[in-house]
């Protein structure tokens, strides 16, 4: 039960307007931490500060300190020497809308390896298979790996996106309302999947389904007007 992420005094401004104010929190290893709250209160923004994805947004600015423990050592992810692409390989992210790239299923999963130049290695196919198995998708797609990923159903697409994030074996996985665009059955499947993933990964889940949070989260916090108002 060691902490994985430590956030202290985090502020986030968008076009000079504060979105997050003085966030302090800790996330424990191999747990699911849920962030709840009304929409438009900075939940997604909070996730984006953890993999610095906000940096591609025009007019955004961040202040504060985020430490993530890789191996034994905590590192400040906003350290000038810390490479963004390395960070994002270790901190995966899954979005609200499934976002398969316009290519085949196989190419989608192998895409992160392509970014590191590993996709030509012999074990690439094996790693794809493993990732797909971990995200409960293998049985459904093993015969159609060369089909367009956008031909899958919504739930399948979301699991594909999780598989794609998992292929790099991230230590942290950020999930931005991963089930809100899906029907109940698909949502339940994703939940089961997340509980599996928890064994090897630290999960930070944004959700506005309270019952979902109660079902799978180990810890929760409520975000309102850019501040944490409640923790349990």
């Amino acid at each position, binding site marked *: 039960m060691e902490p994985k992420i430590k956030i202290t005094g985090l502020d986030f401004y968008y076009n000079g307007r504060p979105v997050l104010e003085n966030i302090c929190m800790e996330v424990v290893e191999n747990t699911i931490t849920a962030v709840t709250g009304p929409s438009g209160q900075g939940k997604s923004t909070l996730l984006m500060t953890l*993999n610095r*994805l906000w940096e591609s947004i025009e007019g955004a600015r961040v202040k504060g300190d985020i430490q993530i423990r890789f191996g034994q050592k905590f590192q400040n992810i906003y350290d000038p020497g810390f490479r963004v*692409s390395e960070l*994002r*390989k270790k901190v995966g992210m899954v979005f609200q809308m499934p976002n398969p*790239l316009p290519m085949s299923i196989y190419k989608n999963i192998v*895409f992160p390896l392509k970014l590191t130049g590993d996709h030509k290695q012999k074990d690439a196919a094996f790693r794809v298979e493993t990732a797909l198995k971990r995200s409960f998708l293998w049985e459904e797609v093993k015969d159609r790996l060369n089909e367009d990923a956008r031909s899958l159903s919504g739930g399948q697409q979301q699991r594909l996106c999780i598989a794609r994030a998992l292929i790099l074996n991230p230590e942290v996985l950020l999930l931005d309302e991963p089930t809100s665009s899906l029907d109940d059955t698909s949502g339940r499947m994703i939940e089961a999947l997340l509980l599996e993933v928890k064994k090897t990964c630290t999960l930070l889940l944004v959700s506005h389904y309270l019952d979902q949070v109660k079902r799978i989260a180990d810890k929760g916090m409520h975000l309102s007007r850019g501040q944490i108002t409640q923790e349990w």
Partner: protein
Amino acid sequence: MASPLWDRAFRLFAWGCSLVLMGAFLVIIGFLCIKGYTALTPRLIFGDTGFWDAVLLRRQVFDGLFPAMAGTLCLIMLSIVLAVPLGLSTGIFLAEYASPRVKWFFSLVFDILAGIPSIVVGLFGFCITLFLHQCFFDRLYPCLLISALSLAFLVLPYMIRTTQMALESLPVSVRLTAPSLGATQLQNIVYVLLPAALSTILSGIILSIGRCAEDTAVIMLTGAVATAGIPKSVFSSYEALPFYIYYISSQYADHSELIKGYGACLVLIFICMNLFVLSHFLKKRLSQRLLFRH
């Protein structure tokens, strides 16, 4: 304006204008077809030379459009080859790297470039040639390369704008996917953004090809001539379809030459319409399926 009379007048106006415009368009096309359909034979293109002799460049074609078509083709290919890398890179810079202020400035510059009349670009090309000829290379004349360069300048703003728009209009979900998996900005552009915007960019390129195919003002100042045969190098003068049409319209010697002019008009319209349809087809993003399977 509440009375139904107004409403009817308004509809009538809209109908009337549409009919006038369509009428004018049909009259133009119909006029060319009626006058020119007799010219639409292989002779129009190859003159007295046989098809294979002409295509394999075994014999020169006189009295035919073949050299003009070949010239236009060379011109298009060369200009596009020159304009695409520059236009694409500039568009990428504006869409992905430039800050809003920088973007504002450069867009203004390229809007101005887009507004410059083509003949001014031609004048620029001509004077540059003259200048280079007098000062540096006395073997440099107005030629295919100069025309292609000038045309490339002409279509550059279109290419920049299409590329920029295509990239900027990509949804955030596509834009953030690769970075969230650890892609660098360059990887994101090369692997995700450009492929996703490709169909729009391609349709822009094809419209630029249309511009190159139809432009007359630039080429008449920079190297298109009445008789040149098939261009042998990029430093050679050349014939071009639109220039041929212009030339015939003012200098036809007899009726048969004029008929050839009508034929040339039909050929040029046919080419431009096909390019347009192709670009339309691409814009409908049918290409995505074709390009991304596997």
